[in-house]
């Protein structure tokens, strides 16, 4: 091996503390990238495997109702591979006589013979459905788990005030309801109050008196024909009140999972980039210091005829090696984390199949990115080394970074103690040291603030939604419009503090090329329980004939105040056709879920008479219960005539918190990574700060300066440059958080930009304490060093 390469390896050993520091930083960065990106790909592959093998429908069309023969006719449409007509209806479910927990069950029909061929079910417990006459039901696992149903238990759907009894044959997981949500307006699964169950067709027809009818079509098509088939079927089915088809990618469960995946993909790129960027800064800082320290050696090697490019290569290789050392443990750690994260995630969602993506490509990309980043970071110091004039490099005491402190500093320091004055002057004299410390501290702060911000913002957004936007305890939905007098009736209940009616119509909104389906919720004027604010926090009363989209909805539709959209009733048919332009009055702040709001009066005035909910009727109701009575009110609400859905805010919040668990786990992992990385960066920086002063400190000690005074001097300088780092790091962290919040917005989330003061306090105090602690090992080693030897080597 050439002596130059030998020198490289020995240098790595000599600078092992720094090398280990960089290896740790790199390891954290690459393991985070590897674990998150591999989890993202594994989950994506698992879902895709599920969608393909369990045959998630290419599209679904809901309709009022149509004869079953229609399905046979549609099967002949060219391109149709498989088609099923089914009945899907929501019913009220009682779990057992006397148990008043309120639940909505979605009943879906299964062919009388055999199993589902589209949107297949996976049997997790018990048995599949028996013959058509058996009064049996399969329950979705989340719902079964929430209510502790086991095979053999009995469940009681209530149709037309009649309680029916069905035996639970088995517990299943459905590819269509991997994420059990009612609709895209309700993207949080609430298994406490909503569940899905499957019955033989004959039973469902009897239950709903829908003999020979279907109200939903699910279809799979030959490759490349979907859109054509979908359009043809929609055109055909409009006379049966068909709603616009829902293609697979817009299917609510798949959409939510995809949003989750997209979020994970962003996590997988943004944070590791931050981490690897921080590692690069550390490489830059350490290598620059190494080059500075080895000026004489570089000068000599150049004087001996070593070409400039070879000197540069030496330091570039040093940077590359420092970067690469951490990649192997990083990849291994990342692989382990990835399997864990994917497994936890899939288990949490109840997805029983795991397809672990190949980690080879992910690892290679990670190694390549890390290596490239290290080399880019090492480029500048390596170039400096190669461009060093040998004569200049060997000149005693030569240093490019020595400066004079500004005069004002000298004046300010007049009267300060010797140690303080030396320490603070050093900030300006050793600018490279000050700059590296500022970079190191700022990088650590950016990492801590951005990760802690996510926790703050999520908590704040959820809190705002439940405390301000959704200021009610119970949400009631009626199967058909009812008289608004029911509100007066509910207001008389002793457990109720306030109640308000509302109305909703399903519509299709078009803005330019963007078309999407929504339910417009009409909220009464002066509502106490549904209050809205704009982005600036000002109250927004719902007035006039315009609509008020939630900010996430406005973003996904690319609409803003003043835009005019085309509104169509979702169930437009030959007999009933409703189309109208509608203006966006203002967007309203709503962190969770999509939504479009309007004045109830205006909604009823414009569309109510034609759609069967004229003024004086309501389609739903929200209720504020007296403290401690929300479950009692919910139970009573189910007894209201026509009530089909009762949901408590308490349950929903619990479910939101539960579904946020994964987010919190991710953020928690990120915070641990960020904390560890900050420790590594600050340790590297501060340790280098002290180590590069060994000779200087040795001289001071030889002159009789005590270790106590030296410690004070070093601490004052480090803390002063840390404060400068804080001044840079806090705004940089804020900017990072602001950038992150932009990336974090989805169709169902509109996260607030909020950072708690606690975050600033924790990250700043943590950094200051860390700086003081990190200098201890280096100071101890200096305290124990051989003064004679150190002073002898001084100048080399």
């Amino acid at each position: 091996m050439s002596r130059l390469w030998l020198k490289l390896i020995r240098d790595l050993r000599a600078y092992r503390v720094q090398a280990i520091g960089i290896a740790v930083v790199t390891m954290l960065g690459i393991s985070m990238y590897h674990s998150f990106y591999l989890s993202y790909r594994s989950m994506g592959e698992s879902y895709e495997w599920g969608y393909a093998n369990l045959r998630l429908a290419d599209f679904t069309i809901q309709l009022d109702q149509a004869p079953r023969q229609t399905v046979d006719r549609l099967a002949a449409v060219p391109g149709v591979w498989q088609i099923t007509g089914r009945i899907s209806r929501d019913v009220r479910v009682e779990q057992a006589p006397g148990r008043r927990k309120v639940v909505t069950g979605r009943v879906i029909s299964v062919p009388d013979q055999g199993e589902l061929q589209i949107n297949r079910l996976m049997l997790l417990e018990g048995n599949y459905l028996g013959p058509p006459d058996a009064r049996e039901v399969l329950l979705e696992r989340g719902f079964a788990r929430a209510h502790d149903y086991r095979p053999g238990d009995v469940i009681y759907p209530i149709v037309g005030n009649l309680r029916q009894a069905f035996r639970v044959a088995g517990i299943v997981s459905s590819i269509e309801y991997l994420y059990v949500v009612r609709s895209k307006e309700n993207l949080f699964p609430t298994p406490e109050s909503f569940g899905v169950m499957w019955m033989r067709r004959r039973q469902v027809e009897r239950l709903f008196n829908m003999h020979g009818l279907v109200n939903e079509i699910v279809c799979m098509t030959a490759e490349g024909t979907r859109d054509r088939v979908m359009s043809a079927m929609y055109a055909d089915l409009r006379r049966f009140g068909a709603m616009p088809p829902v293609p697979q990618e817009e299917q609510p469960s798949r959409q939510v999972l995809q949003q989750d995946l997209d979020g994970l993909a962003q996590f997988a790129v943004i944070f590791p980039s931050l981490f690897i960027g921080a590692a690069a800064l550390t490489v830059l800082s350490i290598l620059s210091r190494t080059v500075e320290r080895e000026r004489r050696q570089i000068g000599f090697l150049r004087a001996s005829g070593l070409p400039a490019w070879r000197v540069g290569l030496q330091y570039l290789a040093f940077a590359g090696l420092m970067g690469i050392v951490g990649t192997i443990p990083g990849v291994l750690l990342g692989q382990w984390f990835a399997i864990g994260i994917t497994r936890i995630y899939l288990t949490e969602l109840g997805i029983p199949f795991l397809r672990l993506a190949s980690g080879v490509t992910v690892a290679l990309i990670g190694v390549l990115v890390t290596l490239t980043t290290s080399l880019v970071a090492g480029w500048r110091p390596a170039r400096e080394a190669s461009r060093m004039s040998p004569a200049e490099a060997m000149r005693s005491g030569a240093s490019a970074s020595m400066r004079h402190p500004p005069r004002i500093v000298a004046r300010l320091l007049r009267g300060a103690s010797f140690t303080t004055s030396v320490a603070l002057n050093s900030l300006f004299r050793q600018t490279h040291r000050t700059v590296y410390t500022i970079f190191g501290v700022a990088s650590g702060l950016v990492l801590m603030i951005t990760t802690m911000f996510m926790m703050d913002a999520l908590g704040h957004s959820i809190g705002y939604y439940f405390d301000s936007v959704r200021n009610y305890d119970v949400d009631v939905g009626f199967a058909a419009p009812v008289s608004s007098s029911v509100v007066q009736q509910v207001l008389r209940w002793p457990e109720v503090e306030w109640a308000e009616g509302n109305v909703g119509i399903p519509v299709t909104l078009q803005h330019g090329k963007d078309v999407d389906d929504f339910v417009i919720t009409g909220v009464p004027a002066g509502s106490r329980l549904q209050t809205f604010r704009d982005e600036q926090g000002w109250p927004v009363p719902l007035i006039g004939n315009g609509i008020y989209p939630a900010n996430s909805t406005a973003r996904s539709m690319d609409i803003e105040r003043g835009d005019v959209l085309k509104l169509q009733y979702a169930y437009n048919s030959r007999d009933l056709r409703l189309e109208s332009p509608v203006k966006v009055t203002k967007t309203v702040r709503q962190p969770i879920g999509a939504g479009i709001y309007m004045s109830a009066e205006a909604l009823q005035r414009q569309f109510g008479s034609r759609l069967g909910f004229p003024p004086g009727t309501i389609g739903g109701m929200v209720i504020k219960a007296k403290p401690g009575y929300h479950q009692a009110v919910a139970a009573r609400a189910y007894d209201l005539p026509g009530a089909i859905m009762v949901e408590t805010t308490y349950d929903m919040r619990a479910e939101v918190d539960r579904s946020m668990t994964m987010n919190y786990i991710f953020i928690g992992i990120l915070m641990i990574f960020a904390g560890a990385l900050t420790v590594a960066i600050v340790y590297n920086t501060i340790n280098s700060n002290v180590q590069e002063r060994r000779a200087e400190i040795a001289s001071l000690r030889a002159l009789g300066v005590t270790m106590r005074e030296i410690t004070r001097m070093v601490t004052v300088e480090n803390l002063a440059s840390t404060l400068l780092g804080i001044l840079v790091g806090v705004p940089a962290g804020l900017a990072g958080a602001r950038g992150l919040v932009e990336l974090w917005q989805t169709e169902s989330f509109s996260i607030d930009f909020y950072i708690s003061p606690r975050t600033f306090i924790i990250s700043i105090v943590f950094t200051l304490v860390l700086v003081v602690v990190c200098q201890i090992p280096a100071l101890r080693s200096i305290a124990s060093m051989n003064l004679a030897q150190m002073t002898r080597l001084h100048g080399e």
Partner: protein
Amino acid sequence: MGKTAVSCQDLQKHYEMGEVIVKALRGATFDVPEGSLVVLLGPSGSGKTTLLNIIGGLDTPTSGTVFVDGQEVSKLVEPELTQYRRGKVGFIFQFFNLVPTLTAEENVALVGELAGNADEAADLLERVGLGERLEYYPAELSGGEQQRVAIARALIKRPYLLLGDEPTGNLDYETGLMVLQLIRDVSDESDLTVLMVTHNAAIGQMADIVISLRSGHVEDIRQNESPLPPSELRW
């Protein structure tokens, strides 16, 4: 005396230090015959290190010419200068500039590799009296031993010209004498041209030629008919 090893004609070197122009050399002219040991003598700031750096190809003159072994060094630019240093010049510095993470033998072999003579490292260390210290790191060697490693390192390239910048400046008297003896021996045994910079007038007594510098001028060139052996030098 035979062929001229080094020839400097009207060498000038100006540095810009902010708005001030420092004239380090103001027209130095002299010749050095091959195989001679020359001492460049002068006080601090006289331009002797600048002159050595220019002759060694570490720096370039503002004007004037330098020929070494018939090659016009003053015309060279990088990477020709690198090739020149690699092939023709060996350096010894006041601060030994050893690589602290390499052993004595490895330090010598490191430079030997540049010339393709790495195998001779141990022999050379033996020759400078460090045969027992091959595996020692610089921190484990005394100042004199470190400088002897530096001499071995300079010699391994079999240079045409050996340049020493205050090679005893960082050594005590006894060790300094030992190093000077080594340089004298090397010069005599290999018929090597040696240029050594010092501010110590006593060292001039061991030289074949003493070139005195003052304020960038060559003040005096003195031929030493009977150089003293280094062991007889006193300061």
